[in-house]
């Protein structure tokens, strides 16, 4: 079995599972939030702020942030290993791919911290 040091869980099978589980969390959050906004025409600040101050919603939001980080990493990793290859971009592919993945990782971490600030700071 080929081991890979840059994928999320060192195993394609676990990555596959993590992607599915995180996808379900993300789908639930998106559908809930979209449903809430559509069902509240003329939404005001008080109502909006109350929704996100609710503890259950904070936990749901934080869970979604974690799921988002996992999901985005697996997705961007998959895409980078498929397209940023020596066949596609030449001999520097490994360096380019690694830098791309590092940038994605930093961006995801920044999104995560920013998200925590938004959900627990406001």
């Amino acid at each position: 079995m080929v081991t890979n040091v840059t994928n999320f869980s060192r195993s394609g099978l676990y990555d596959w599972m993590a992607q599915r589980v995180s996808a379900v969390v993300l789908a639930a959050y998106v559908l809930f939030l979209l449903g809430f906004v559509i069902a509240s025409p003329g939404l005001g600040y008080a109502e909006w702020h109350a929704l996100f101050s609710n503890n259950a919603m904070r936990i749901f939001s934080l869970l979604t942030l974690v799921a988002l980080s996992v999901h985005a990493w697996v997705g961007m990793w998959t895409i980078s290993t498929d397209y940023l290859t020596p066949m596609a971009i030449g001999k520097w592919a490994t360096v380019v791919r690694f830098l791309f993945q590092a940038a994605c990782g930093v961006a995801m971490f920044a999104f995560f911290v920013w998200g925590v600030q938004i959900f627990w700071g406001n």
Partner: protein
Amino acid sequence: MGDGYLTSALPDNFALIVRGSQCDKKAVNSQRPVNLDLRTIKLPITGVTSFLHRVSGIILFFGIAVLLYGLDKSLASAEGFAEVKECLTSPLAKFVIWGLLSALLYHLVAGVRHLIMDMGIGETLEGGKLGSKIVLVVSTIVIVLLGVWIW
């Protein structure tokens, strides 16, 4: 295992590639090359939906920043909320939000299809083609409805 081809947003032409390599093993000349160069494979409809799934994922990766910015502002204060609401009345902002949410909804619809396929439904070549058509039709309807709701 542990290779990009085996995880997730699997290119739908993967089955064809695997089938090809299995044939090769049975064939007389087992050294026949297998084409794994994705750039030279003409995309069938299943490939188009798979590609769109990836593109929408990349758009969302960057779009998260926009959505988080709007959420942050809207939750920070009543003035911020009013500002975001005011901003969303401009045609440009409406178009950007429509684009982002379209990517999100397409990614969601195509993702649900993946989960359905994981249950063993629609895994044949014909089933895959039909599934791709359903994904395109359903996501188009949802995206048009979203546009109507936004404007």
